[in-house]
Every structure is written in C-alpha cells, then in structure tokens.
C-alpha cells in the first residue's frame, strides 16, 4: 500500500515542479533506404518514417495520460544523412532536408534530427556535400536539426571541419537573418557525439543502432531546485554532502519516470527501448530552470565564483541518482546550460554575471557545451571556428561530449536581444571578447592529434 506522503509528494512534483518527460525520441534507421536515384531514396525515407512513426504521438499521449505525466516533445532521430545520401549533390541534400521536414510534419513531431555528418578524422564526399547544404537546409525547413561531429578523443580534432563549420554557421545565420539567425539554433557542432541522444539539436541515430529504437530524455530542474530548497529550509545545517544526496534521490525519481514511460511507449509501438538520457533540461519558464538551482545553493547567480564547483556537484549527483534508476543510460546525461532556453541563465548573461569565457569553463564539468549562445552578428567565421575549436578541445582532452550551438545574430550587437521563440527562447547577445577578425592559428587547419591516454594531469 502506498503512503499518503508518497502520493502527495509525487503529485507535488508533477503539478508544481514541472516534472515531465521532456522528449520521447524515435530513432529510425535509414541506411537501407539508400538508392541511386533521388526519387527512390526520398520515397523510401518518407515511407520508412511515416510507417514507423505514425502512432508515435498518439501512443506517447496515451501513456502520458495513463500516468499523469506529460510527454512534452515527441521527436525523430534518423541515420546520418551524410551516409544515407552520400552520392547526391548539395541541392539534392537540400531536397532531402525538405523531405525530412515534410515527414516530421506528417507524423506531427516538432523536430527531426539526423541531418548529420561524422567527420572527426576526415571528410568523405557525402560529408562535404551535407555541410555545404546545411545553411540552406536549415533556413528553408522548420523541423530539421543538423549536427556535425568534428572531434573525438580517439581521433583528435579535425580543424578543416572546424573551419568549415565556422563558415557554415555564418552562412546559416545570414540565410535566416529575418529570424535572428534561427537556423543556427538547429545546428550543433560536436566532440564525442553519442549515438543515442534523444535531445535536439544533436539527436541522430548512430550506425551501431538497431532498425528502430525509443530513447527518452527526462528533465526536472524544477524538482531538483525544490528538493534543495526544502532541505535547506527544514534541515539543520545540511552540508554539500547532504545536498548531493538529496539531488541523487531526486534524480532517481525523475529518471524512474522516464524509464517507465519510455518502456511502455516502446512496448506499445513494438520497438525496442534504448536509453534514458539523464539530463536536466530547462525550458524558458519560471520554475523550470537550471540557473535557479545555483541561487538555491547560495550563489548570487550562475556565473559568479563558485559556479563551476556547484555545477560539478549537481552534474555528478544527477548522474549517480539516474544511473541507479535506469537499466540503460545514454545520450548526453548531465545538466544543460542553454543560455536562451533558460530564463535564469539568460538573465545572468544580461546582468553580466555570465560571460562566454565562464560558460566555456562550465562546459568542462557539465554535459553539453556552449549551448544556444547568441553572439554579435559581425563575429568573424574565424572567431566562430576558434570558439568551436576551444570547446572541442575540452571534450577531446576530458573524454567527454562537448558541443557548440552558437548563433551570430545578423545585424545585432552585444547587449541587444535575439528572439527565437518557443522552446528556443530569447537571449541577450553576449560579447565575444578579444576576438580578432582573421585567425591564422585556425587557418593552419589539418588535424590536432588525438591526446595521450596516460600522464593524465
């Protein structure tokens, strides 16, 4: 028999603390859709996606209703299109992107990821074509997300690709200038990209994955914040060891929700269950913020001295609690700090507590990277590439995933605001300090070698 305390505390998390399943993402393998003419390829892809995903939204809603837990987003991740469409031209890749957009609309998912190339060690023909197609593909579609893995701990950093991505981001921003460069909000540059991320914009289905798979992204920054607040208000002198314990227990509960719902959705769709991604993912709503957790921990704002230590504690405790709660953990698994998608983090940037440099420092201890950071539109492609290279180096050396989702907002300067709308939010444009126009270091290109795996200091 359940106790009234168990029932009421669970309801509290749901009704007042924004506990939900942030995304159920259906991975769809498209490798066997390959064809030597574009029409057949497009027909194959459309048929595959609409067949596998036709019941995704309905089943997610049904299961969500049954447990009283909303599945906020339903999404699709496909095999890397750079592989699926390797023989085709840039304009044909753009057609494929538009087809993915239509397929996503047909099955009513808000994003489809997988316009992806994996180029950490070198670029093949399909990779180069896909990267060339990215700006127009993202500017002319609404739901397609792109990602390019330019670095890994085993391969090093492909600086040719990094350079190319700086240029790609600039062009994508210019092609969507009317909407503050929104195309860049759908593009992530990665080091060590996982094959099973359910979150956008980095979701794609890895080549080591099955025909179809359900991956789940849980969230719950509001639940963690409230649990910390309760402990600080009700317990006598809780120290950071105790707070870590509270975060672990809370992460356990949040993850169990994702596991239960993901498994049931997978079972109802007759598709295998993949992983739970244990990430604290904020939305631009009060009470659903990662940034607010830092204030609960006693910091004036995210970004002040002490923030990196606090984030390290938070991220580690979330992983420990979540790993115990789920049989298969994967994806990014850690705290997200997307500037425009988190009201509190956006405010911290606006108030000057959080700079690009501090964000970069934080990415050494959390799951993602420079995420949804709006920068001045006149930032040069070399500077963007250099920021990406720095971020990739943190991931490569620390054997972790890092990513950059930078938006050089056309025509706007530091201190002005960029508006992306919906979950992508809005943000102050942060200055890029000490930037130089051309960057000869970046233009040396080539590949930064993979790091040594001993002498680990």
């Amino acid at each position, binding site marked *: 028999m359940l106790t009234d305390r168990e029932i009421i505390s669970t309801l509290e998390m749901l009704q007042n603390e924004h506990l939900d399943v942030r995304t159920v993402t259906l991975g769809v393998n498209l490798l066997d859709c390959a064809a030597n003419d574009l029409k057949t390829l497009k027909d194959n892809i459309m048929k595959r996606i609409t067949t596998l995903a036709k019941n995704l939204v309905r089943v997610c809603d049904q299961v969500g209703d049954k447990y009283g*837990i909303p599945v906020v987003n339903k999404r699709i991740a496909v095999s890397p299109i750079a592989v699926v469409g390797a023989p085709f031209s840039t304009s044909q890749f753009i057609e494929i992107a538009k087809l993915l957009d239509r397929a996503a609309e047909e099955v009513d998912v808000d994003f489809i990821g997988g316009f992806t190339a994996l180029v950490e060690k070198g670029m093949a023909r399909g990779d180069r074509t896909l990267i060339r197609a990215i700006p127009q593909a993202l500017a002319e579609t609404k739901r397609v997300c792109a990602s390019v893995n330019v670095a890994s701990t085993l391969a090093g950093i492909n600086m040719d690709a990094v350079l190319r991505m700086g240029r790609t981001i600039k062009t994508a921003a210019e092609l969507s200038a009317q909407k503050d460069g929104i195309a860049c909000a759908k593009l992530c540059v990665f080091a060590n990209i996982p094959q099973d991320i359910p979150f956008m914009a980095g979701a794609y289905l890895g080549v080591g994955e099955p025909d179809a798979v359900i991956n789940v992204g849980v969230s719950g920054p509001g639940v963690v914040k409230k649990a910390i607040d309760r402990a600080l208000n009700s317990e006598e002198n809780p120290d950071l060891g105790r707070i870590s314990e509270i975060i672990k227990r809370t992460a356990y509960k949040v993850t169990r929700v994702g596991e*239960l719902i993901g498994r049931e959705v997978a079972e109802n769709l007759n598709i295998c269950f993949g992983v739970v991604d244990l990430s604290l993912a904020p939305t631009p709503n009060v009470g659903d913020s990662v940034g607010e957790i830092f204030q609960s921990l006693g910091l004036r704002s995210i970004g002040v001295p002490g923030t990196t230590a606090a984030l390290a504690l938070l991220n580690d405790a979330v992983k420990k609690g979540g790993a115990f709660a789920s049989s298969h953990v994967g994806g990014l698994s850690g705290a997200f700090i997307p500037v425009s998608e988190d009201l509190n983090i956006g405010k911290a940037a606006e108030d000057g507590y959080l700079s690009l440099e501090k964000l970069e420092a934080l990415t050494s201890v959390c799951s993602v990277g420079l995420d949804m950071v709006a920068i001045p539109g006149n930032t040069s492609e070399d500077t963007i590439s250099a920021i990406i290279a720095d971020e990739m180096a943190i991931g490569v050396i620390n054997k972790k995933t890092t990513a950059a989702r930078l938006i050089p907002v056309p025509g706007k300067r530091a201190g002005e605001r960029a508006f992306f709308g919906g979950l992508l939010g809005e943000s102050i444009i942060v200055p890029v300090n000490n930037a130089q126009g051309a960057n000869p270091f970046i233009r040396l290109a080539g590949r930064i070698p993979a790091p040594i795996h001993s002498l680990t200091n």
Partner: protein
Amino acid sequence: MKKIVVSVLGQDRPGIIAAITRVLYQADCNIENVSQTILQSEFSGIFIASIPADRSAQDLCLQLEKALTPLKQHVYVKYLEHIEKDYTFTESEPFIIVTKGPDSKGLVAGITEVIARYGANVTNLQAVFEGGDDPEKNIMIYEVDIPTRIDQQKFYEELRNRAQELGLNISIQHRNIFKAINRI
C-alpha cells in the same frame, strides 16, 4: 479449520491489542492477518484467525466482550465465508485518484458514486478533511481497480466533471508511477 473475523472499534487507549490477542491466544486461535488503524482518536482493528473446531464464534465474542468492555471497545465476530464475490470479477488496472479542494459535505459520496457506477472497486481510501478552503488540507486519496473493459476515457471524463461540480481538483494516474518513483 474454520476462520473467524474479529472487528473491534472504540476510543483508542493503551492495551486494546493486548487484550484482544490474549483472548484469541487463550481460545487457541491462530492469528493470520491483522489490519489496524487510528483515525483521530478512534481505534479500529480487523483480525482474521483460525479457530479450533470445538470453539464457536459466539463463545469467542462473549469472551472478547468481557475483556474489552472495560476498555470501552465494541466487538463483532463472524465466520470468514468462502470468497463469493457479489460482483463479477473482471480484469482491472490499479489507479490512484487524488482530489484536493475546499471541504464540504458529500465529497466522498459524490466521487464514489461515479466510481461505483462504472464497476471500479475502491481498495483503499485515505481522506483528510481539516475543513476550510485550503485544498492542501482537504485531500482524498482513492486506490481503485478500474476494469479494463469499461470506456475509460468516458469514466475519467465523468470523474473530472463530477470533481469540477464539487469544486475539487482531481488527478487520475496509474498506480505504477507512484511505485516507480518512490520504491526501489
């Protein structure tokens, strides 16, 4: 071996369970299940025990009354009957229905009328009404087995409508979510 059900009700005080179990022990009864609770100041307990063939429920009831009357407890004893449910048992799923809202008369009756009409069975009910308008102080928690054959959407809709008429906020969730979150 016959079984008896002993139900005891009265104001709570020390020694009630000791008195009941002493009589059962002296009558050579073997206790199989006990459920006991205290609501505000009232004690209530149900005991199921096996009873030797040469003893009767009536005799046992007299002995229990003798022991419990000084403790101001009411006793009822009956034989446990074979399970013959008056309703047709159907496949069901366990759900938790929680309502919160201002206290007024008829809340439990209003909600359970809908539950009963759809053939759902309440397996546990906890309700606290501290009075007043604070919804957090007036909560009902029903554990309910909902038959899978009924039109569940219609049932939920009727429950939600009834809750709205009664000024209550209602949530209806499968029991497993509470187990998943709270139990290892």
